[in-house]
């Protein structure tokens, strides 16, 4: 039983390069994604080879930092970029810098769903203006705007995760129902606007997804965004309920191959869901070795590495937050100290009865001024630090996408395994049936028909199996390419982050040293008297 089912597999290993191009070519006819895409083209060298502020001791202090200079080391933010961070260059701008998509989310407005509701104010929602500027010809325009609501983002992200299995799709913003009750409406809307903008920019930065139909539609199509069938859970449940009896009896129409290739979704294919669950349990308990297992050692190693990376990223991200807080506190307390001395200075001057007091007041004023300056520098330092270390947070967020992509692979594999099991059980049933009917002369009409139907089902399942295999291969390829891309971009972005962080620390430390050096100089007469 197992032997026949494995026919397509044991002879040719799943990842032989010879077969790969064939598979891709076959899949093209079923699938709607252009595979001749940037996935296969080499990534161009990253943009970290030059930053405007070159390493040239000693005076970073003079070269770089004017207050709130946001044209930071990564070079991806414009000086007027007041919206969300402009950190890791690859997360936000693709390595090929000659074409660009710049997305802005702005202008939140309250709108009302046209309904006959008696209760005023119900069914209101917020829409955002999504403006796109691009020079990519596919868009057929260089600047356009649409109004979208948060629900549309959910739709978009849902579609993308279905169409781009195996890719590291940027995670979409949370629905955060609780926060919406707790926060002030304005704050919440602003927070959401920022999150949406970040998300869309990340999508536009992904070399494959930026060219997707889904994104294009989202950015360009005016009016309401049509909902996908899959999001309409309720009706699918009903459909599934209708289909079940037929599927159970083996009479009903088989699923279309490409549907079979997709993982079973709750709300439809209840039976399939059950079957796949059974299969995964069988896999886990090792009752029978599944026909296909994850053999790619390299992949498994990478998976472990990703897990470790995520753990360490999470830890580093936490410590980075603590560091930022400590720098902030330092700046604040410095400021308060300076203020206390300013008050003292004023007081001594006002109440002075002796000259010694006026001298002391003057000394205090110097100290206070320096302290306040230092406080400001610490706070500026921190603003920049936040931007640089944000890279850690960004990549941590990306790890979620990695999870999703690797999970796509696992579920695709499970689908293949399930179909193989089904195929083998169908075939054995067919054999038994044939053996039984051959014993009866004259051929029972219904029996013959049943046999024919069984053969049809087997054929359909066979087709589905092939589609599932191709899908699995495709996802594996996506995984591989994405992992490579992640490695390259991560290297570049992290190195940028480190450099930016360090240059920042140096620059501000120098500035602070200057300020204090002056005061030490001005008070040096006290030192001489003392020694």
């Amino acid at each position: 039983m197992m032997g026949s089912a494995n026919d397509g597999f044991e002879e040719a290993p799943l990842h032989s390069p010879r077969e790969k191009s064939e598979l891709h070519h076959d899949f093209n006819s079923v699938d709607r994604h252009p595979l001749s895409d940037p996935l296969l083209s080499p990534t161009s060298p990253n943009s970290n080879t030059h930053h405007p502020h070159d390493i040239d001791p000693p005076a970073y202090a003079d070269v770089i930092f004017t207050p709130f200079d946001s044209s930071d080391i990564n070079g991806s933010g414009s000086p007027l970029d007041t919206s969300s961070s402009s950190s890791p260059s690859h997360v936000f701008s693709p390595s090929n810098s000659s074409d660009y998509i710049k997305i802005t989310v702005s202008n939140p407005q309250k709108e009302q769903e046209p309904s006959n509701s008696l209760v005023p104010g119900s069914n209101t929602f917020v829409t955002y203006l999504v403006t796109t500027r691009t020079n990519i010809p596919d868009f057929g325009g260089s600047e356009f705007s649409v109004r979208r609501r948060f629900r549309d983002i959910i739709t978009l992200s849902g579609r993308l995760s279905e169409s781009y299995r195996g890719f590291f799709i940027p995670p979409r913003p949370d629905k955060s129902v609780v926060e919406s009750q707790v926060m002030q409406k304005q704050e919440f809307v602003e927070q959401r606007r920022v999150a949406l903008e970040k998300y869309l920019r990340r999508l536009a930065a992904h070399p494959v997804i930026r060219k997707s139909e889904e994104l294009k539609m989202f950015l360009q199509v005016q009016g309401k965004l049509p909902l996908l069938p899959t999001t309409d859970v309720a009706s699918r449940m009903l459909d599934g309920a209708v289909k079940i009896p037929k599927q159970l009896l083996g009479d009903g129409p088989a699923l279309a191959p490409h549907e079979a290739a997709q993982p079973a979704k709750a709300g439809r294919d209840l039976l399939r869901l059950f079957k796949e669950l059974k299969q995964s349990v069988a896999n886990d308990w090792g009752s029978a070795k599944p026909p296909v297992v994850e053999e790619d050692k390299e992949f498994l190693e990478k998976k472990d590495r990703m897990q470790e990376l995520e753990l360490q990223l999470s830890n580093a991200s936490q410590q980075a937050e603590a560091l930022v807080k400590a720098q902030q506190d330092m700046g604040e307390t410095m400021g308060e100290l300076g203020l206390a001395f300013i008050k003292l200075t004023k007081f001594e001057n006002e109440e002075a009865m002796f000259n010694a007091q006026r001298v002391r007041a003057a000394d205090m004023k110097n100290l206070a001024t320096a302290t306040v300056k230092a406080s400001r520098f610490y706070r500026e330092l921190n603003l920049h630090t936040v931007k640089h270390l944000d890279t850690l947070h960004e990549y941590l967020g990306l790890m979620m996408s990695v999870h999703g992509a690797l999970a796509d692979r696992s579920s695709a594999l499970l689908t293949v395994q399930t179909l193989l099991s089904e195929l083998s059980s169908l075939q054995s049933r067919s054999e038994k049936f044939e053996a039984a009917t051959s014993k009866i002369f004259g051929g029972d009409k219904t029996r013959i028909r049943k046999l024919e139907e069984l053969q049809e089902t087997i054929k359909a399942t066979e087709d589905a199996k092939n589609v599932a295999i191709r899908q699995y291969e495709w996802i594996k390829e996506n995984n591989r390419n994405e992992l490579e891309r992640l490695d390259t971009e991560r290297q570049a972005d992290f190195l940028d982050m480190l450099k930016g962080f360090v240059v920042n620390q140096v620059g501000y430390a120098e500035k602070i040293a200057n300020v204090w050096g002056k005061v030490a100089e001005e008070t040096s007469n006290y030192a001489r008297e003392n020694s």
Partner: protein
Amino acid sequence: MASSRGPQSPRSPHPSLSLASSQPYLSVSVTDPVKMGTGVQAYISYRVITKTNMPQYQGSEKIVIRRYSDFVWLYDRLFEKYKGIFIPPLPEKSAVEKFRFSAEFIEMRRRALDVFVNRIASHQELRQSEDLRTFLQVDEEVMERIRSYETGLFKKKPADLIQIFKDVQSKVSDVVLGKEKPVEESSEDYEKLKHYIFELENHLAEAQKQAYRLVKRHRELGSSLSDFGKAVKLLGACEGDNLGKAFSELGAKSEAVSLKLQKEAHELLMNFEEPLKDYVRAVQSIKATIAERAAAFKQQCELAETIKLKEINLDKLMLTRSDRVREAELEYKELKRESEEATERFEMIVRLMNEEIERFQEQKTLDMGIAFHEFAKGQARLATAVADAWRSLLPKLEACSTT
């Protein structure tokens, strides 16, 4: 001998130690804190080394063992005897239990006690004190006897002192509100001084509080840099290659910078926060002297009132040729004498205070100048070290990205 002395605080006034000089000198060191006893009874003892050429002292050098309560005894005695003079302040009595024996607390207290004794030894009048001589010369056991005996007798009841403080404070507010209480001084200059002292304490306390917080912030920043460094190193370990190397270099550097911050936090505490605290204590000591002055004034006034009454009574008695005239006359003479003494005491306090306040202002300008200088120096030193440390990392990072 030099090796047995602890590090001198920059605030300790130390007259030059030339033995051949005919100038009288008196120099004291408080050193070698040692924990004695166990459990609740445990305390710290110090070695107090005196070097002097003053004839009233037995010999040119003397070493004794003293504990904190002995210093308190000395303060109380001087406060009693030298009214009008600002007695140098003592470090606080007791900290939270768990810090009482921490190395840092012990060192800070030792320094503060050293400064305390030396300020007394440098003060024109105070250095002549017999109690000082006792403190610097008698044996440990004798000291203990003296201390426990006299503590009982001469300790002012806390209630009295509080009442006096309250009177002084309410006088300030009365002036502000435009009322005048009869039994208080009403000189404008003195009002100004009192107001100044009370306000000064508030301002200084705020500055000291922020200075203390700043010390804490240094420690917190150091600690978070250390944790960050560790986390970054771990991240580097799972990256490998160039990036891994870059991360591990950064992590190591972060930890190094963290150490510099911790070190500077300590310096900041010793050389900036402590002088500010000392300043606050000094102002509180002045408030106690102000209370003494108020008490002396009150006494003088009350005596004057009593004398007036006695005069009236005496005249009455004389008119009626009472046989109690003799008695009354004697009483009157006695009162008159007391009154003169009280007036003398009060006027001396006023005179001394005027000298003291001028000296105080000058001394404080000096003390603060030093403290500010140390603060600025320390911060400059820290920032420079931090800049150098991070800068040294840059060529390594460059190397990581070009290969």
